[in-house]
């Protein structure tokens, strides 16, 4: 928040061009917020690691037991090796891909589902609304993590697809409720009325008129769902309900717990993947928080503090 304050006062001192006024666009606002920047940079780093892990390590098959076990960190093995003889840094780098894919794919589909259910419930109204809201609320109160565990177990220990489906099924309801509330508040606005008078079809109104006004909510929703997916998938894999042969941060945590890494003096094996999950989560959370401030000016403390200062 101070960052925002400092930034704006700086530009004011330099003599901000008139185009820098409020409503200067989401992108510019994001660039000005330090929180959003930190989030974006973290996300960019992880994306590069996910796309081209070869750039960061010379190891090509991080799951092969190719080295001496339990080595301490050194020039050859930046984070040491596991008690099974794998390079921890290499596993970490290659594990990025799966975690990131889970976050983006599960986040995307959960958001799509939220929008579909939430917006159509609010816009269609009547019986359809009653029914869709009921389904949403049922999913909202079902205990998620136990449901995930039960699902993952019944579905057979899991391939990536199973994990993804489970995350989407359990992750959409919160967003759907928000979408519904937002659409309800838009329903009787004049611009929608005029579209109806023009005789547009419902689908056209929803897609062309309603959705664009909800961009910020949708983005926030996606970031929230991605965060949820990262954390939940890591937890699921940590419990051993993922594929134990896959390369991902959650699986690393599973094996380090399995091999008692903390108790046998190899804390890095557990710290490193957990920290990566945390950083990816933080990146989504920071972007979300910054986005919240950008799309909801009431939450930005800057204006108020400044005007108070002026009047004093």
């Amino acid at each position, binding site marked *: *928040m*101070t960052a925002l304050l400092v930034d704006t006062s700086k530009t004011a001192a330099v003599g901000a061009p008139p185009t820098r006024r409020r409503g200067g666009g989401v992108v510019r606002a994001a660039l000005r917020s330090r929180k959003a920047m930190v989030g974006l940079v973290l996300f960019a780093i992880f994306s590069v690691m996910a796309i081209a892990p070869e750039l960061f390590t010379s190891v090509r098959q991080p799951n092969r037991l190719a080295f001496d076990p339990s080595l301490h960190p050194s020039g050859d093995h930046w984070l040491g090796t596991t008690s099974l003889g794998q390079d921890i840094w290499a596993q970490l780098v290659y594990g990025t891909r799966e975690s990131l894919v889970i976050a983006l794919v599960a986040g995307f589909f959960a958001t799509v589902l939220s929008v579909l259910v939430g917006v159509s419930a609010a816009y269609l109204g009547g019986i359809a609304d009653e029914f869709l809201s009921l389904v949403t609320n049922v999913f909202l109160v079902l205990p998620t993590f136990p449901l995930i*565990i039960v699902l993952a177990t019944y*579905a057979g220990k899991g391939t990536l697809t199973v994990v993804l489906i489970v995350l989407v099924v359990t992750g959409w309801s919160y967003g759907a409720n928000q979408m519904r509330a937002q659409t309800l508040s838009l329903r009787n606005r004049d611009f929608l009325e005029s579209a109806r008078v023009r005789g547009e079809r419902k689908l056209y109104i929803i897609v062309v008129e309603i959705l664009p006004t909800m961009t910020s909510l949708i983005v926030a929703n996606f970031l929230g769902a991605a965060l949820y997916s990262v*954390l939940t998938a890591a937890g699921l894999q940590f419990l051993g309900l993922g594929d134990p042969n896959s390369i991902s941060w959650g699986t690393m945590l599973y094996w380090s*717990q399995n091999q008692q890494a903390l108790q046998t003096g190899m804390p890095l094996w557990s710290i490193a993947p957990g920290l990566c999950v*945390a950083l990816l989560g933080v990146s989504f959370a*920071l972007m979300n928080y910054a986005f919240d401030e950008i799309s909801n000016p009431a939450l930005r*403390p*800057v204006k108020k503090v400044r005007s108070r200062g002026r009047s004093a």
Partner: protein
Amino acid sequence: MRFVVRRLGFFVLTLWAALTLNFFIPRFMPGSPLDALRARTHNRLSPDALNQMLTSFGFKPHENWFAQYLHYLGNMVTGQWGVSIGATLGTPVRTLIGQALPWTLGLVGIATVLAFLIGSLIGVIAGWRRGGKLDSILPPVFVVTSALPYFWVGLMLILVFSVWTNGWLPSDFNYDSDLLPEWSGPFAANVIKHGILPAATIILTSVGGWVLTMRNNMITTLAEDYVRMGRAKGLPNRRIMLDYAARNAMLPNLSGFAMSLGFVISGAILVEYVFNYPGLGYLLYNAVQNTDYPLMQALFMLFTVAVLLALLVCDFVIAWLDPRSRAKG
């Protein structure tokens, strides 16, 4: 009245949906629980005993599925949850749950309430002194803590306070194994000592959410006319902050708090797993590991009922506290 009926209707419908999911998930998923059960027990049990056990589980392959379904619903609702078919073979599910429930309620319940109270208080102050020191430092910090994987926070706490300090705080179980449970000072102290790290894990990772929502609610509430009115009347700041703003800002958070109370008995599976804490979450994990379907089903139903009850109570409390919500129905 209409309000009460609607709420109760939702309660029954959701419970039914959860029970139904519970019934159909195993039947639609690949891999038969029947085979798993046969594989697990075929050396230890006679076919008759196995049949009996399957019956108590509600699995009667020769009956049609609808009859099975009705029978299962009846059993779940009337508390006939059958016997465990996992590691604790033959123990009634109710006994297992009865043993684990107090530990979860104690640990996760207290931690959840503490996190809510601490978080709300910080949120109220941060929202009140908006733009102040507290408000500029804490929200970003809590954005970070609420994005941490909480089982990993538990691991780190174990590393710092248990492994690196030669077992300064215990890192597993609910009390030392050489003690006998009794109502005494030393035993209680031991239980508390074992609870510190898991409770700290829950509080650290959940307090952030309360701080952020409470702060934002406070900011919205402070812009209301009645707050301005209070200021105009010249009321002391403290009174405006607590009686005018905080009380109203709290309302939207109450249903969230109720949900989290409902999730108390289920929501800390990973914490209980990390700390080997013998609560309901750990029980569910073990049930999953041992394909103990009766136990899983009973636990899952219990978890759902807990959330629904908490929500129901919360709805009535809010309706009582806030007349506006009654009008909405």
